[in-house]
């Protein structure tokens, strides 16, 4: 058997804002009608959280349910649980038109953590990241430099970022450079 490895093999930087590879992460992309009744129980079962509403991130420790688009959710869970989760999804959704796909190994998950983490991301993405507008509990899909990425906050100083595996090194280098360049002082520190 081949042994699964993350694209960045545990790469990490030091500094006041640290960028690090979060290693293997189970991810399941589910496309379906999000108003489907049984989805509530399914989301509870998979990640222990309700179905995320518009632009919402429901994070529970190492699990999460993220709103990706009006007909798409992303479930995060430990890498070893994906197969089991897929069969539970197939069971719960068997009468409903849907697509559930294991995308764990197609993506990379990074963490950006530190007092000005918000500015590290804000420098790279064309979105309003003011603390009044974006905070824990929300998710944004946008652009980081030249690549597509999605990110959410787990607390006031921590971002988690997902991107395609093939561009994981670019994402890491970009975040590292942005962190190294230091704070801009645009947002209040530690928010």
């Amino acid at each position, binding site marked *: 058997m081949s042994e699964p490895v993350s694209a960045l093999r545990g790469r990490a930087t030091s500094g006041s804002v640290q960028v690090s590879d979060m290693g293997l992460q189970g991810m399941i992309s589910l496309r379906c009608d999000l108003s489907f009744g049984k989805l509530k129980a399914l989301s509870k079962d998979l990640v222990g959280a309700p179905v995320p509403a*518009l*632009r919402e991130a429901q994070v529970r420790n190492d699990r999460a349910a993220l709103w*990706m*688009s*009006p007909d*798409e959710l992303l479930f995060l869970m430990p890498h070893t649980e994906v197969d089991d989760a897929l069969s539970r999804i197939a069971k719960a959704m068997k009468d409903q038109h849907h697509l559930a796909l294991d995308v764990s190994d197609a993506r990379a998950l990074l963490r950006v953590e530190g007092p000005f983490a918000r500015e590290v991301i804000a420098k790279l993405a*064309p*979105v*309003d990241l003011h603390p009044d507008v974006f905070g824990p509990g929300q998710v*944004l*899909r*946008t*652009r980081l430099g030249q690549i*597509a990425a999605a990110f959410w906050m787990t607390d006031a100083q921590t971002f988690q970022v997902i991107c395609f595996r093939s561009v994981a090194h670019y994402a890491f280098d970009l975040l590292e450079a942005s962190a190294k360049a230091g704070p801009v002082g645009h947002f209040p520190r530690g928010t």
Partner: protein
Amino acid sequence: MLILHCPHCDRMVDETDLHPGGEAHLKRHGPEADAEAFENYLFMRENPKGVHFERWRHVYGCGKWFLAARNTATLEVYGTYPAQTHQPPQTIRDTITERQPGWAWGDFR
């Protein structure tokens, strides 16, 4: 730089997060159509200086299409609406009429 409201994500989105999709409200004429209708469908575009209706795709975000009513000369945006709409909503037409009395675009006015 344009900043448009994505009706699917309900947030303002930067132009660099979007992919342009050309003119909106095209009526498709397939291979069975007569040559002139097919040519019109395939090649003829409004290209106005002023009020215009366009398709945009929120490519770095939700991936969904939406339509935008805007002014190519002033860059004013009158509004955006989902792509599953056969003609501009009345509220957007009213906004345009208020800003550009007597406007016309294709069959819309």
